[in-house]
């Protein structure tokens, strides 16, 4: 059977994605601890299928301003990952590295932007490495592109991409504990349907 729509995913498939998310998050916490040089831990991520408006509300409403980072996925599977990070998360990174918080998301300096981009890179690589090592697939990721804007506008990018294959997005809600403060990272995964099929096939899960 072939997947026609993301809505056809069942609990069993979500459990598989959750487990990959788990391993990826664990890798990410380790890599972030190395990068930031502060103790970094992570709680069990929640993996959900949410529709567009639920996702927007979950992220503080359409006009809430946040950082969006887009990473392209290529290789044996194709798609995109979008991170939505709150100012508190970004500030945690810069204060761990330079001891200063981000004052204004719109006027981040080059240093602050590149730190955030590097964090995006680390997270994307952590998840994709988890996926690649579990499945033996070749997966390449692009350098993250960053924007600061209204959450609704940022999410229109995966929403449009997803509109071709369903009206829900795969949402991974991570809570990192960095230097004993909890911050949230929100990841939206937009795989092509063919890629999801390939992925489940490699893992021996029927679709």
């Amino acid at each position: 059977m072939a997947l026609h729509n993301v809505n056809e995913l069942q609990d069993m498939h979500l459990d598989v994605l959750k487990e990959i998310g788990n391993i990826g998050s664990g890798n990410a916490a380790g890599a972030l601890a190395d990068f930031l040089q502060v103790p970094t831990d992570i709680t069990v991520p929640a993996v959900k299928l949410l529709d567009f408006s639920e996702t927007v509300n979950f992220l503080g409403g359409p006009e809430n301003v946040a950082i969006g980072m887009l990473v392209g996925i290529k290789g044996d599977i194709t798609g995109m990952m979008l991170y939505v990070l709150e100012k508190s998360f970004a500030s945690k990174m810069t204060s761990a590295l330079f001891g200063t918080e981000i004052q204004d998301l719109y006027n981040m300096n080059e240093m602050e932007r590149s730190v955030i981009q590097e964090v995006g890179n680390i997270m994307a690589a952590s998840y994709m490495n988890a996926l690649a090592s579990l499945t033996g697939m070749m997966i390449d990721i692009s350098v993250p592109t960053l924007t600061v804007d209204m959450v609704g506008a940022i999410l229109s990018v995966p929403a449009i991409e997803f509109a071709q294959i369903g009206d829900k997005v795969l949402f991974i809600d991570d809570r990192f504990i960095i230097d004993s403060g909890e911050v949230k990272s929100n990841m939206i995964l937009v795989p092509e349907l063919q890629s999801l099929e390939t992925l489940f096939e490699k893992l021996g899960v029927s679709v």
Partner: protein
Amino acid sequence: MAMVTVGIADLNAVKTPDSLITYALGSCVGICLYDSDKKIAGLAHIMLPLSTEAAGKIDNKRRYADTGITELIQSMNHMGASTARMTAKIAGGAQMFKGNSSSMFNIGERNVAAVKKVLASYRIRIVAEETGADFGRTVVFHGEDGKMEVRAAMKPTKIV
């Protein structure tokens, strides 16, 4: 005076003194149609260009520029608006990420082009346009006077 919210891939129409709002257009396009005689205002928030170019079946007509605008015009006609009197104001169609690796290359630009094509086919004139660039926009459309208010984060509000 009510403010009616239009979601993504959705549309609605009101009469004066009510208004319409759609939040945070990114690459999507908001189409505001107005019949100034009857003071009837309509707003559609489309995500994709032409339904005729879409792969697979169309499960939501309001997603596309052609089918969305057609439905908006019909619902305004039902309220007594005349297509011949309608004028359009459009906003959105931004490119949110530079060098987007998406398969939907330049989707904002393509959405705007499709909207213009569809409006031209109905002979509806575009009297104001706030499209393109790289930022999100919230649009408020006032039934009372047909003014379109465009809000963006960190930018002054524009009323056209």
